[in-house]
């Protein structure tokens, strides 16, 4: 596993320097910790702030979704580690427009503890709420939804909450739609090859030259099964079935689909899988709107992909269609 990088300890800071150099009109690096990215134009007074954060190594997640109609700011941890409490405090402050701030991030221990502490530090200053991304159906059973990890599907909650906040909604309303969108979203991933945390001696897992692992987490957390590589259609069918079997009660027939590369898996393969997902969903009487195919939430050079379904209600669909503007996700 080779990386084009300099000193491993500089990986995250140099990546952030590159991000702001490439997109100066979108992103500003801020905070004493230097581990916050916020919108170039700053927080808008009178708007609810939407903040996320998490470990590095998942670009465009999380930082890349700072932008109009999406996030206001984002705290950034080391590769695959939660953001520090200082960076969380700074991200919340930088997102504050006087109407409160929603903390919207993936359900991981470190992230949760640090965002919680940040909220406690700021409780006299800024009203905050929390919604956790919990879309990974492979990480806990349906009876323990709240314990599921957050993966690629969180971007639907970014989009819905971001659009709602842009509309001038209250913190309660923004929080409610974020939670509703998380509740309506399901993701499952399949991994083909591991990635290497910069500086680590070995990849976080090993896998045979002809094996895949269903349900593996975005940091290489163990999945549901490991077996020989199968045809793409067979893999896609199983993933769709698992997602539909886990669908929220009383769901409608409209979904958005995200077929997301974990990093090394190329667009050709994503499209081959998307084609099958689309035909399976349509066979199941489900209508796809606003599909997304590409690199939306990665694990550096990990090979594999994830499929997310966001089961739409009228409001979520309308919010997903509203304008959003980041270099990595644009809705016109």
């Amino acid at each position, binding site marked *: 596993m080779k990386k084009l990088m300099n000193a491993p300890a500089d990986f995250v800071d140099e990546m952030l320097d590159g991000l702001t150099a490439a997109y100066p009109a979108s992103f500003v690096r801020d905070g004493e*910790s230097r581990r916050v990215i916020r919108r170039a134009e700053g927080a808008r007074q009178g708007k609810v702030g939407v903040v996320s954060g998490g*470990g590095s190594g998942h670009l465009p997640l999380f930082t890349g979704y700072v932008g109009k109609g999406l996030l206001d700011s984002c705290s950034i*941890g*080391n590769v*695959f*580690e*939660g*953001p*520090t*409490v*200082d*960076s*969380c405090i700074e991200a919340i402050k930088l997102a504050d427009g006087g109407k409160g701030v929603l903390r919207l991030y993936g359900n*991981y*221990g*470190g*992230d*949760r*503890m*640090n965002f*919680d*502490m940040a909220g406690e530090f700021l409780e006299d200053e800024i009203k905050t709420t929390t919604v956790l991304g919990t879309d990974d159906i*492979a*990480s*806990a*059973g349906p009876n*323990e939804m709240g*314990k599921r*990890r957050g993966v690629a599907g969180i971007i639907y909650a970014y989009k819905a909450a971001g659009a709602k906040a842009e509309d001038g909604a209250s913190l309660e309303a923004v929080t409610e739609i974020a939670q509703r969108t998380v509740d309506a979203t399901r993701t499952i991933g399949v991994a083909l090859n591991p990635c290497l*945390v910069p*500086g*680590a*001696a*070995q990849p*976080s*897992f090993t896998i045979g030259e002809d094996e895949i692992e269903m*349900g593996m*987490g975005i*940091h*290489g*957390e*163990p999945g*549901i099964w490991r077996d020989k590589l199968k045809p793409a259609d067979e893999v896609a069918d199983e993933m769709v079935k698992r997602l539909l079997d886990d669908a929220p009660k009383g769901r409608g027939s409209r979904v958005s689909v995200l077929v997301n590369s974990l990093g090394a898996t190329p667009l050709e393969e994503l499209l081959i899988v998307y084609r099958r997902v689309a035909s399976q969903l349509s066979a199941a009487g489900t209508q796809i709107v606003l599909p997304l195919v590409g690199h939306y939430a990665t694990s550096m050079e990990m090979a594999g992909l994830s499929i997310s379904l966001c089961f739409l209600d009228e409001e979520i669909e309308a919010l997903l269609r509203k304008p959003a503007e980041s270099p990595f996700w644009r809705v016109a």
Partner: protein
Amino acid sequence: MSAVDLAALAGAVTRAKARMATLEQELNVADSRLGDGDTGVMLARVIDAMAGIDYAAQPDIGAALSLMARKTATATGSSLGTLIATGLLTVGKRAKGEPSIAYADLGAHVAAVVEAMAARGGATLGDKTVLDILDALARGIAGLSDGKAVASAATDACRTTLAEFRERPCKIGRARMFAEKSIGMDDPGMLAVHELVLAIAGPAA
């Protein structure tokens, strides 16, 4: 010696850092079986940051521990790192202004750490985490005031608890889905405490 003073604290950090040379990889391997494989990388970085502190220059043991907490919190936002920061800050506050911590009080301090960590992380005893080994440690050394006795009670408590929990399933965190698969494996956080306590207390025991 009947208390942990700044020099003893510095010595403990030095021994922990030396142990990390090989422990880093062992912890990564343990974490990659159950989690994301980074416990060692993170802990090595945290202990490096602690080793950078000039302990002799600190006004008191409480201040030193609080500074260790601060350094830890700046170095990482990982679960274990954040819990360590929480624990250090807890004892730092309890020992504020004191020149040292008496061995006899150590157990109570560790019990307070367990309580603070449980409050912060939401886990409970029995979940197979650092909490369980720290809890056993607190109970094992409670009230002991002799250095050798503390050291041997500490290592005994860690050894027994690690072995006991090895045969139990993980109940929190990333290994949750695989509770049964985790049987027979050490929790990386518990393993870290076990190895570091042995490295620090070993010479004294």
